[in-house]
């Protein structure tokens, strides 16, 4: 089972600031997903990255997959209060049972107006 470590665990910033959160493992991922979870709701998929070195952009969010496919980052530019939530990374287990996602503990982001 892959262990995913996310950092920081908590992040509180002011509206307009930039931030980066990280997802790291000692294992190689076949693919990695980022989800955002708002209070009282289930996680919602933001992006899936597959190729080492891949960069994907979703409006003000930039996702990067490490060259060795062991780590990923999420960068938010000019954060807004609506970005507040728990950001989770998830990776598919290697070794056959690729339907099973392993989740990190998440980064709880608060963007203050």
């Amino acid at each position, binding site marked *: 089972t892959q262990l995913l470590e996310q950092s920081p665990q908590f992040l509180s910033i002011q509206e307009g600031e930039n931030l980066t959160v990280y997802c790291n493992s000692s294992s190689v991922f*076949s693919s990695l997903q980022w989800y955002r979870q708002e209070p009282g709701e289930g*996680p919602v998929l933001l992006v*899936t990255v597959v190729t080492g070195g891949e960069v994907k952009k979703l409006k003000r969010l930039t996702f990067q997959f490490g060259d060795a496919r062991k780590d990923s980052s999420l960068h938010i530019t000019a954060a807004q209060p609506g970005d507040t939530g728990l950001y989770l990374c998830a990776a*598919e287990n290697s070794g056959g049972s690729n*339907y*099973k*996602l392993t989740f990190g503990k998440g980064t709880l982001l608060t963007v203050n107006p």
Partner: protein
Amino acid sequence: GAGVSQSPSNKVTEKGKDVELRCDPISGHTALYWYRQRLGQGLEFLIYFQGNSAPDKSGLPSDRFSAERTGESVSTLTIQRTQQEDSAVYLCASSFSPWGYYNEQFFGPGTRLTVL
């Protein structure tokens, strides 16, 4: 269209009682997952259903936990003789296809279980 729905949204029970949690997946989604999310923790895989295949129960923490799914529709997660450590949010997710790189899972809002 309708998303994944779960009921009840909140459940408070006494230690030792049995509880049943329900999940209605998105129509047409063959794969269904149950997860547990404890406060401050990530999602913990519990069980996976895919069509008529035998479910993967490897994540169930004890024999007090069981789950069923009727065909490719409703699923119920049952916890018998609840303990205080069972308190958590139980999330259900479904996906059209679990295979390949794009295993996009659609989550329900969860059931918050509190065992007193």
